[in-house]
């Protein structure tokens, strides 16, 4: 343990966001360094790797304009996030600096940015219903407190409208509202201003970490961790229910790939690093509830599937870690359905615990199963219809086709309106009755 800062002027090479410093004594992995730019400004970095006296530093921020004579200050501290309840209502950039023209708050404590893994025996089972106001989610793919449920979208689909709808309309089953931690990664200005308008309209508390498309890539890796450190603080120190929305994870993964390639690591599938699963898990797994504590962290990451491909490494690895997924469909969007949720590939793994008597309604499970079953049948029949034509089908099959259409038009589609769980389930019952499909 050194108790002072050390300054070195021995940078040997600069490669993208990476800096090699020679002849460094006594340094630790994860140590924060400050780099003084030739123009006098400073930027932060972190020690990634040590080989004898050669140290590899990952710089947070733009390395353009740095030269090998730039002094590097080793601070002997590991990266920490300032935490306080005063953070609510504030907007920060990806380096945790305020961008809302208000001064920095005074932290109550400093927390580890990457957090610690939660002891599995300390986890409380997620089972408290969250009403998002969307029938396709509440009725058929129910979200519960402490769950991580990503939205799988395609380029051009209204994922941000859906995320905004969930932000605005989510209510907890026992009453009460969420504190929202909003993490924007690589957002265009257009998207950014859309989300900011939504956040301003909301009455609930929020914290925002904004990294725009033209801001440093490294901050894209940091911002979600800051957001989650705040969420954990608010949830488990302050007892609040926190909803973390991260958009867009595809930009996060691309940033990860960019840094990994600069480090000359072995590329995995499609050039993404082999450790992407573990890295994504270190974010997603921070959602949850803890036994004996009142708060919760619920996570709603948005993933844009490149080439609409659900087997692409980003949605694929995400799906392996998260507890289900909400999949948006281009076809439904083109039919004018909003939200364009395709309920067949969508899934909420924790739904079973969060529905039924005491959570939603006693008949919830039965209705959901029936709707799903008949809609799946109707969808299957559409392929047949394409071959033999509607006239070539028996009456019961034609009815199934009509049911599938009505299901999309009336239950999934709800435009901008908010439906509570009773309205969602009643819409389902009405549909089933109209087609006399039991219930």
């Amino acid at each position, binding site marked *: 343990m050194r108790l002072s800062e050390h300054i070195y002027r021995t940078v040997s090479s600069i490669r993208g966001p990476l800096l090699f410093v020679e002849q460094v004594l006594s340094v630790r992995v994860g140590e924060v360094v400050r780099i003084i730019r030739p123009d006098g400004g400073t930027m932060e970095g972190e020690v990634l790797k040590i080989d004898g006296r050669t140290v590899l530093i990952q710089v947070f921020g733009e390395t353009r304009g740095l030269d090998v004579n730039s002094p590097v200050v080793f601070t002997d501290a590991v990266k920490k996030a300032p935490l306080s309840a005063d953070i609510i209502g504030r907007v920060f950039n990806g380096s945790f600096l305020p961008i809302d023209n208000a001064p920095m708050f005074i932290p109550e404590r400093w927390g580890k940015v990457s957090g610690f893994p*939660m002891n*599995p025996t300390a986890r409380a089972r997620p089972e408290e219903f969250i009403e998002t106001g969307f029938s396709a989610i509440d009725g058929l793919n129910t979200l519960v407190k402490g769950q991580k449920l990503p939205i799988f979208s395609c380029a051009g689909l209204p994922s941000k409208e859906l995320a905004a709808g969930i932000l605005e309309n989510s209510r907890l089953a026992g009453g009460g509202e969420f504190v929202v931690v909003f993490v924007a990664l690589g957002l265009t200005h257009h998207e950014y201003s859309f989300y900011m308008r939504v956040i301003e309209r909301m009455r609930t508390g929020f914290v925002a970490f904004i990294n725009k498309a033209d801001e440093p890539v490294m901050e894209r890796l940091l911002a979600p961790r800051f957001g989650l450190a705040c969420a954990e603080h608010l949830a488990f120190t302050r007892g609040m229910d926190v909803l973390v929305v991260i958009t867009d994870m595809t930009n996060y993964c691309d940033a990860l790939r960019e840094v990994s390639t600069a480090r000359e690591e072995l590329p995995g599938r499609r050039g993404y690093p082999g*450790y992407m*699963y*573990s890295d994504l*898990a270190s974010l997603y*797994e921070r959602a949850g509830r803890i036994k004996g504590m009142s708060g919760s962290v619920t996570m709603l990451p948005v993933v844009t599937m490149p080439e609409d491909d659900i087997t692409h490494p980003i949605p*694929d*690895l995400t799906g392996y870690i998260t507890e289900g997924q909400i999949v948006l469909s281009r076809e439904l969007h083109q039919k004018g359905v909003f939200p364009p949720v395709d309920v067949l590939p969508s899934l909420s793994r924790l739904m079973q615990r969060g529905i039924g008597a005491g959570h939603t309604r006693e008949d919830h499970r039965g209705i959901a199963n029936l709707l799903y*079953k008949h809609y799946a049948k109707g969808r299957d029949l559409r392929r047949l219809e394409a071959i033999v034509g509607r006239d070539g089908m028996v009456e019961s099959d034609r009815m199934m086709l009509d049911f599938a259409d009505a299901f999309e038009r009336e239950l999934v589609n709800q435009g901008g309106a908010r439906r509570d769980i009773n309205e969602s389930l009643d819409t389902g019952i009405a549909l089933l009755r109209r087609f006399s499909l039991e219930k």
Partner: protein
Amino acid sequence: MSGRILGISGPTVTVDLKGLKLYDMVRVGEAMLIGEVVRLEEDRAVVQVYEDTRGLGVGEQAKGVNVPLTVRLGPGLLSGMYDGLQRPLERLREETGPYISGGRELHALDLERPWRFFPLKQAGDEVAEGDILGHVEEGPFRHLISAMENGRIASIHPGEFTLAGPVGTYADGRVIQAHQEWPVRKPRPYRRKLSPQAPLVTGQRSIDFLFPFARGGTAILPGGFGTGKTILEQAIAKFADVDIVVYVGCGERGNEMAELLEEFVTLSDPWTGQALMTRTIVVANTSNMPVAAREASIYTAVTMAEYYRDMGFHVLLLADSLSRWAEALREISSSLEEMPGEEGYPTYLASRLASFMERAGVVETLSGSIGALSMILSVSPPGGDFTEPVTQACLRTAGAFLMLDTALAHRRHFPAINWFQSYSLYERDMVEHFSATVSPRWGEMQKRCRELLQREETLREVAEIVGIEGLQDADRLLMKAAERIRLEFLSQNAYTEDAFSAPDKTLAMIGDILEFYDRAEARLKAGEFLDDVLKG
């Protein structure tokens, strides 16, 4: 033996220790993190550290311990939950709170808990390694205590004791302990291996009937996300007719582990009526816990499983998922800068997998009883693509391949085991066994069931073109029967009573469907119309 840290890269740390052996344990840094030697060079050793290396500094101390990574084996392992390094998670939580911070050593066994020892041997007896000295009662199980060394017993004490003290002494002064340590990477010894004979009933109809699994066998369950790997593994953990279950959550979700724990405390074993947790050991190394410990976790688990196998029990090891283990191996390999094989996995992936899976089997133990260790391992192929290296490497060793099908899962057909692609190499022996124990018609019914499903598939292709109305009545009847097989027989809802199906129930159900088909077919032949036949 102590030295200093020279370099750090991710989970691997270079230290200047000399005289270490490969796979010796090393403690590094002021935090005393646990690691294993994975490479020896002239004057330095490369250590794979099982905990987060963040904050570790160059120049900090490193200590060689001169023993390889071991697990502690003794009474009290059952109903415990451990991390990949066998730290008891419940006690860790009591001591350090809801988060795991690392660098902490906790004895896997509770040294203060009182046990009662019932000796079998007495003072003056000569014993050899593996001989049974006596037993303690661990819940409903007779936990055998065996000798770890040869020698003549000088004293042996019946009655109450704790693991902190000995249960006896040898004539030459060595003490006899009721617990031991064993290196995780070294298979525990046995007299000889036998071939699998008896079936392992899982309670899942599609497995027991179509792809029966054997005691001492290995099966893999590959499937894309959302195909129900975890739910199937957990259902098997609940209902399988085995004595002891070791469940490894290897790089999977934390909430799933919480759910499993809560459920297992309340449910009971359908075969014995005992609480499920009393027969279960859980090893949980979730996806956000250190990667290197994930690599070790399956070895920690299999060693505990072998320990109970050596008492003559039938132990089932369930791992979810082997792909995460392979990824951990890849991560470590790439931080060692080894030459990569296919998709970046090290070229030794297949041989490591094979030697792990070979630790399964039916054995005659050192004390002469018969124990079995069976393995059911899930695999998570990226993008649901079964041509990837981990699935392919498993296929070379596994005795059963239960392929989980995304299309079936989307239709909410669970367990989503594809009945055309899956296979079990134990099938012939097991069908013989079921024919002898349940019904002589088992094999014949299985054949008919397969045939119906196969013919349905062909007819379905026709029906897609001409429409179901265009088929003949006999074919439509067959489609109806096959649909009943799929929906009523092969599907099982994990959340209802039907989650478990005993072999006689399985046979009765398929018997009913086949009988329905035969009767209806006869009536069709007699000239009746299909619609009337189906009405009743």
